[in-house]
Protein backbone atom coordinates (compact mmCIF):
# COMPACT_ATOMS: atom_id res chain seq x y z
CA UNK A 1 0.00 0.00 0.00
CA UNK A 2 1.47 3.34 -0.90
CA UNK A 3 2.08 5.70 1.92
CA UNK A 4 1.33 9.22 0.81
CA UNK A 5 3.28 10.93 3.53
CA UNK A 6 3.57 14.05 1.39
CA UNK A 7 -0.01 15.00 2.23
CA UNK A 8 0.85 15.66 5.84
CA UNK A 9 3.90 17.76 5.04
CA UNK A 10 4.03 21.52 5.39
CA UNK A 11 5.09 23.48 2.32
CA UNK A 12 8.56 23.96 3.80
CA UNK A 13 8.93 20.24 4.46
CA UNK A 14 7.67 19.37 1.01
CA UNK A 15 10.10 21.82 -0.62
CA UNK A 16 12.98 20.47 1.44
CA UNK A 17 12.16 16.85 0.58
CA UNK A 18 11.64 17.69 -3.07
CA UNK A 19 15.02 19.37 -3.19
CA UNK A 20 16.81 16.60 -1.31
CA UNK A 21 15.28 13.66 -3.17
CA UNK A 22 14.54 14.88 -6.67
CA UNK A 23 16.99 17.62 -7.54
CA UNK A 24 20.04 15.33 -7.29
CA UNK A 25 18.63 13.53 -10.35
CA UNK A 26 18.97 16.71 -12.42
CA UNK A 27 22.19 15.68 -14.15
CA UNK A 28 21.07 12.25 -15.47
CA UNK A 29 17.61 13.66 -16.22
CA UNK A 30 19.01 16.50 -18.33
CA UNK A 31 21.29 14.06 -20.14
CA UNK A 32 18.33 11.80 -20.87
CA UNK A 33 16.33 14.78 -22.15
CA UNK A 34 19.20 15.85 -24.36
CA UNK A 35 19.63 12.36 -25.83
CA UNK A 36 15.90 12.27 -26.63
CA UNK A 37 15.54 15.75 -28.08
CA UNK A 38 19.12 16.24 -29.38
CA UNK A 39 18.76 19.92 -28.59
CA UNK A 40 19.93 21.78 -25.49
CA UNK A 41 17.04 24.27 -25.36
CA UNK A 42 14.47 21.51 -25.82
CA UNK A 43 16.19 19.44 -23.14
CA UNK A 44 16.06 22.44 -20.83
CA UNK A 45 12.32 22.93 -21.40
CA UNK A 46 11.60 19.23 -21.02
CA UNK A 47 13.45 18.98 -17.72
CA UNK A 48 11.69 22.06 -16.34
CA UNK A 49 8.32 20.66 -17.33
CA UNK A 50 9.22 17.32 -15.71
CA UNK A 51 10.14 18.92 -12.38
CA UNK A 52 7.01 21.07 -12.38
CA UNK A 53 4.89 17.95 -12.87
CA UNK A 54 6.89 16.08 -10.25
CA UNK A 55 6.25 18.86 -7.74
CA UNK A 56 2.56 18.88 -8.53
CA UNK A 57 2.34 15.12 -8.00
CA UNK A 58 4.91 14.90 -5.25
CA UNK A 59 2.27 13.67 -2.78
CA UNK A 60 2.06 10.49 -4.82
CA UNK A 61 5.77 9.84 -4.71
CA UNK A 62 6.59 7.19 -2.14
CA UNK A 63 9.47 8.36 -0.04
CA UNK A 64 12.51 6.13 -0.23
CA UNK A 65 11.47 4.57 -3.56
CA UNK A 66 13.36 5.06 -6.79
CA UNK A 67 13.22 8.82 -7.41
CA UNK A 68 15.35 8.55 -10.51
CA UNK A 69 13.06 6.00 -12.17
CA UNK A 70 10.00 8.05 -11.20
CA UNK A 71 11.39 11.23 -12.78
CA UNK A 72 12.59 9.41 -15.90
CA UNK A 73 9.07 8.03 -16.32
CA UNK A 74 7.51 11.49 -16.06
CA UNK A 75 10.02 12.90 -18.52
CA UNK A 76 9.49 10.09 -21.01
CA UNK A 77 5.71 10.60 -20.84
CA UNK A 78 6.07 14.37 -21.31
CA UNK A 79 8.30 13.79 -24.29
CA UNK A 80 5.86 11.39 -25.92
CA UNK A 81 2.61 13.17 -25.09
CA UNK A 82 3.45 16.78 -25.68
CA UNK A 83 7.00 17.58 -26.41
CA UNK A 84 7.57 15.38 -29.39
CA UNK A 85 4.91 17.25 -31.36
CA UNK A 86 6.51 20.63 -30.93
CA UNK A 87 10.13 19.52 -30.83
CA UNK A 88 12.42 21.07 -33.40
CA UNK A 89 14.06 17.69 -33.87
CA UNK A 90 11.99 15.33 -36.00
CA UNK A 91 11.16 12.14 -34.13
CA UNK A 92 11.84 10.11 -37.20
CA UNK A 93 15.38 9.71 -38.40
CA UNK A 94 16.40 11.44 -41.55
CA UNK A 95 18.00 8.46 -43.22
CA UNK A 96 19.34 10.40 -46.18
CA UNK A 97 21.43 12.48 -43.80
CA UNK A 98 22.68 9.36 -42.05
CA UNK A 99 23.53 7.71 -45.31
CA UNK A 100 25.47 10.75 -46.49
CA UNK A 101 27.36 10.89 -43.25
CA UNK A 102 28.54 7.32 -43.46
CA UNK A 103 29.37 7.56 -47.11
CA UNK A 104 31.64 10.46 -46.29
CA UNK A 105 33.33 8.29 -43.71
CA UNK A 106 33.98 5.60 -46.25
CA UNK A 107 35.78 8.03 -48.47
CA UNK A 108 37.85 9.43 -45.65
CA UNK A 109 38.73 5.97 -44.46
CA UNK A 110 40.68 5.15 -47.57
CA UNK A 111 43.15 7.97 -47.32
CA UNK A 112 42.73 9.95 -44.18
CA UNK A 113 43.20 7.69 -41.17
CA UNK A 114 46.65 6.42 -40.44
CA UNK A 115 46.83 2.75 -39.54
CA UNK A 116 49.29 3.50 -36.75
CA UNK A 117 46.76 5.57 -34.79
CA UNK A 118 47.39 5.30 -31.07
CA UNK A 119 44.04 4.22 -29.65
CA UNK A 120 44.97 5.46 -26.16
CA UNK A 121 45.46 9.09 -27.13
CA UNK A 122 42.91 11.58 -25.87
CA UNK A 123 41.98 12.76 -29.33
CA UNK A 124 41.23 9.21 -30.43
CA UNK A 125 39.16 8.63 -27.31
CA UNK A 126 37.23 11.81 -28.13
CA UNK A 127 36.82 10.65 -31.69
CA UNK A 128 35.39 7.33 -30.51
CA UNK A 129 33.01 9.17 -28.16
CA UNK A 130 31.84 11.43 -30.99
CA UNK A 131 31.36 8.48 -33.28
CA UNK A 132 29.40 6.52 -30.69
CA UNK A 133 27.20 9.57 -30.10
CA UNK A 134 26.62 10.06 -33.84
CA UNK A 135 25.72 6.42 -34.34
CA UNK A 136 23.41 6.46 -31.33
CA UNK A 137 21.70 9.65 -32.48
CA UNK A 138 20.80 8.07 -35.81
CA UNK A 139 18.83 5.29 -34.11
CA UNK A 140 15.04 5.63 -33.89
CA UNK A 141 14.10 7.24 -30.58
CA UNK A 142 12.68 4.03 -29.07
CA UNK A 143 15.95 2.20 -29.72
CA UNK A 144 18.02 5.13 -28.47
CA UNK A 145 15.98 5.27 -25.30
CA UNK A 146 16.53 1.66 -24.22
CA UNK A 147 20.27 1.90 -24.84
CA UNK A 148 20.55 5.09 -22.81
CA UNK A 149 18.47 3.73 -19.94
CA UNK A 150 20.38 0.46 -19.83
CA UNK A 151 23.97 1.27 -20.74
CA UNK A 152 24.32 4.88 -19.70
CA UNK A 153 22.03 5.07 -16.70
CA UNK A 154 22.25 1.46 -15.52
CA UNK A 155 18.54 0.81 -15.04
CA UNK A 156 17.46 -2.82 -14.67
CA UNK A 157 15.08 -4.40 -17.18
CA UNK A 158 12.32 -4.22 -14.59
CA UNK A 159 12.89 -0.51 -14.00
CA UNK A 160 13.00 0.10 -17.74
CA UNK A 161 9.68 -1.72 -18.16
CA UNK A 162 8.12 0.62 -15.58
CA UNK A 163 9.66 3.77 -17.04
CA UNK A 164 8.55 2.89 -20.56
CA UNK A 165 5.21 1.24 -19.69
CA UNK A 166 6.02 -1.86 -21.68
CA UNK A 167 6.35 -5.54 -20.72
CA UNK A 168 9.79 -6.79 -19.75
CA UNK A 169 9.84 -9.06 -22.81
CA UNK A 170 9.48 -5.99 -25.01
CA UNK A 171 12.35 -4.33 -23.15
CA UNK A 172 14.52 -7.36 -23.97
CA UNK A 173 13.59 -7.54 -27.63
CA UNK A 174 13.83 -3.79 -28.16
CA UNK A 175 17.25 -3.69 -26.53
CA UNK A 176 18.40 -6.60 -28.65
CA UNK A 177 17.30 -4.93 -31.89
CA UNK A 178 18.69 -1.58 -30.82
CA UNK A 179 22.10 -3.07 -30.10
CA UNK A 180 22.17 -4.94 -33.39
CA UNK A 181 21.41 -1.73 -35.21
CA UNK A 182 24.05 0.22 -33.29
CA UNK A 183 26.59 -2.56 -33.80
CA UNK A 184 26.01 -2.44 -37.53
CA UNK A 185 26.62 1.29 -37.64
CA UNK A 186 29.74 1.13 -35.51
CA UNK A 187 31.17 -1.81 -37.46
CA UNK A 188 30.97 0.29 -40.60
CA UNK A 189 32.96 2.94 -38.79
CA UNK A 190 35.48 0.42 -37.42
CA UNK A 191 36.17 -0.73 -40.96
CA UNK A 192 36.96 2.81 -42.04
CA UNK A 193 39.46 2.95 -39.17
CA UNK A 194 41.18 -0.15 -40.47
CA UNK A 195 39.65 -2.61 -38.03
CA UNK A 196 37.97 -5.71 -39.28
CA UNK A 197 35.38 -7.18 -37.00
Amino acid sequence: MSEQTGKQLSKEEKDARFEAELLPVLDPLYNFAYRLTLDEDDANDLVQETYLKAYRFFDYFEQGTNAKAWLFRILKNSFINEFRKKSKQPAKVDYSEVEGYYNTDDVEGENGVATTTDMRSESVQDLIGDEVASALNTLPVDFRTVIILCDLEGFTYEEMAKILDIPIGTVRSRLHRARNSLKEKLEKYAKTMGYNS
Partner: protein
Amino acid sequence: MESKFTEMYQKEPAEEKDGACEQVADMLDSVVDGEASAEQQTFFNSHIEECVTCFENHQKQKLLKSLISGHLKRVIVPASLAQTIKAKIQESI
Protein backbone atom coordinates in the same frame (compact mmCIF):
# COMPACT_ATOMS: atom_id res chain seq x y z
CA MET B 1 44.72 -19.22 -27.38
CA GLU B 2 42.47 -18.93 -30.37
CA SER B 3 43.72 -22.14 -31.99
CA LYS B 4 42.92 -24.00 -28.76
CA PHE B 5 39.40 -22.62 -28.80
CA THR B 6 38.99 -23.40 -32.47
CA GLU B 7 40.22 -26.95 -31.98
CA MET B 8 37.79 -27.60 -29.15
CA TYR B 9 34.99 -25.93 -31.03
CA GLN B 10 35.53 -28.14 -34.06
CA LYS B 11 35.33 -31.27 -31.95
CA GLU B 12 31.77 -30.52 -30.90
CA PRO B 13 29.01 -32.38 -32.68
CA ALA B 14 27.35 -29.96 -35.09
CA GLU B 15 23.77 -30.35 -33.85
CA GLU B 16 24.73 -29.89 -30.18
CA LYS B 17 26.78 -26.82 -31.06
CA ASP B 18 23.97 -25.14 -32.99
CA GLY B 19 21.38 -25.62 -30.27
CA ALA B 20 23.67 -24.39 -27.52
CA CYS B 21 24.94 -21.48 -29.61
CA GLU B 22 21.39 -20.36 -30.23
CA GLN B 23 20.58 -20.45 -26.53
CA VAL B 24 23.76 -18.58 -25.70
CA ALA B 25 23.01 -15.94 -28.36
CA ASP B 26 19.58 -15.42 -26.78
CA MET B 27 21.21 -14.91 -23.37
CA LEU B 28 23.85 -12.48 -24.57
CA ASP B 29 22.07 -9.28 -23.57
CA SER B 30 20.94 -10.65 -20.20
CA VAL B 31 24.50 -11.73 -19.43
CA VAL B 32 26.19 -8.43 -20.29
CA ASP B 33 23.48 -6.54 -18.41
CA GLY B 34 23.80 -8.71 -15.31
CA GLU B 35 20.21 -9.93 -15.71
CA ALA B 36 20.91 -13.63 -16.30
CA SER B 37 19.95 -16.17 -13.64
CA ALA B 38 22.72 -18.14 -11.91
CA GLU B 39 21.74 -21.18 -13.94
CA GLN B 40 21.88 -19.27 -17.23
CA GLN B 41 25.20 -17.73 -16.29
CA THR B 42 26.74 -21.14 -15.56
CA PHE B 43 25.50 -22.57 -18.84
CA PHE B 44 26.76 -19.49 -20.68
CA ASN B 45 30.22 -19.57 -19.07
CA SER B 46 30.79 -23.23 -19.75
CA HIS B 47 29.70 -22.83 -23.37
CA ILE B 48 31.93 -19.86 -24.21
CA GLU B 49 34.92 -21.72 -22.81
CA GLU B 50 34.48 -24.19 -25.61
CA CYS B 51 32.99 -22.17 -28.46
CA VAL B 52 35.16 -19.54 -30.07
CA THR B 53 32.30 -17.93 -32.03
CA CYS B 54 30.17 -17.39 -28.94
CA PHE B 55 33.23 -16.29 -26.99
CA GLU B 56 33.91 -13.62 -29.59
CA ASN B 57 30.28 -12.55 -29.73
CA HIS B 58 30.35 -12.09 -25.99
CA GLN B 59 33.48 -9.95 -26.25
CA LYS B 60 31.84 -7.79 -28.92
CA GLN B 61 28.69 -7.33 -26.87
CA LYS B 62 30.70 -6.28 -23.82
CA LEU B 63 32.69 -3.88 -25.98
CA LEU B 64 29.51 -2.32 -27.36
CA LYS B 65 28.14 -1.76 -23.87
CA SER B 66 31.41 -0.26 -22.68
CA LEU B 67 31.51 2.10 -25.66
CA ILE B 68 28.24 3.63 -24.49
CA SER B 69 28.99 3.66 -20.78
CA GLY B 70 32.61 4.71 -21.13
CA HIS B 71 32.82 6.90 -24.21
CA LEU B 72 29.54 8.70 -24.59
CA LYS B 73 30.15 12.19 -23.30
CA ARG B 74 27.72 13.53 -20.76
CA VAL B 75 26.31 16.96 -21.51
CA ILE B 76 26.80 19.60 -18.87
CA VAL B 77 23.68 20.83 -17.13
CA PRO B 78 23.28 24.61 -17.49
CA ALA B 79 24.38 26.21 -14.21
CA SER B 80 21.14 28.15 -13.85
CA LEU B 81 18.74 25.26 -14.45
CA ALA B 82 18.26 24.18 -10.82
CA GLN B 83 17.51 27.78 -9.78
CA THR B 84 15.13 28.24 -12.71
CA ILE B 85 13.25 25.09 -11.73
CA LYS B 86 12.92 26.19 -8.11
CA ALA B 87 11.75 29.65 -9.16
CA LYS B 88 9.15 28.24 -11.58
CA ILE B 89 7.83 25.91 -8.91
CA GLN B 90 7.34 28.82 -6.49
CA GLU B 91 5.60 30.82 -9.24
CA SER B 92 3.28 27.92 -9.98
CA ILE B 93 1.98 27.60 -6.41
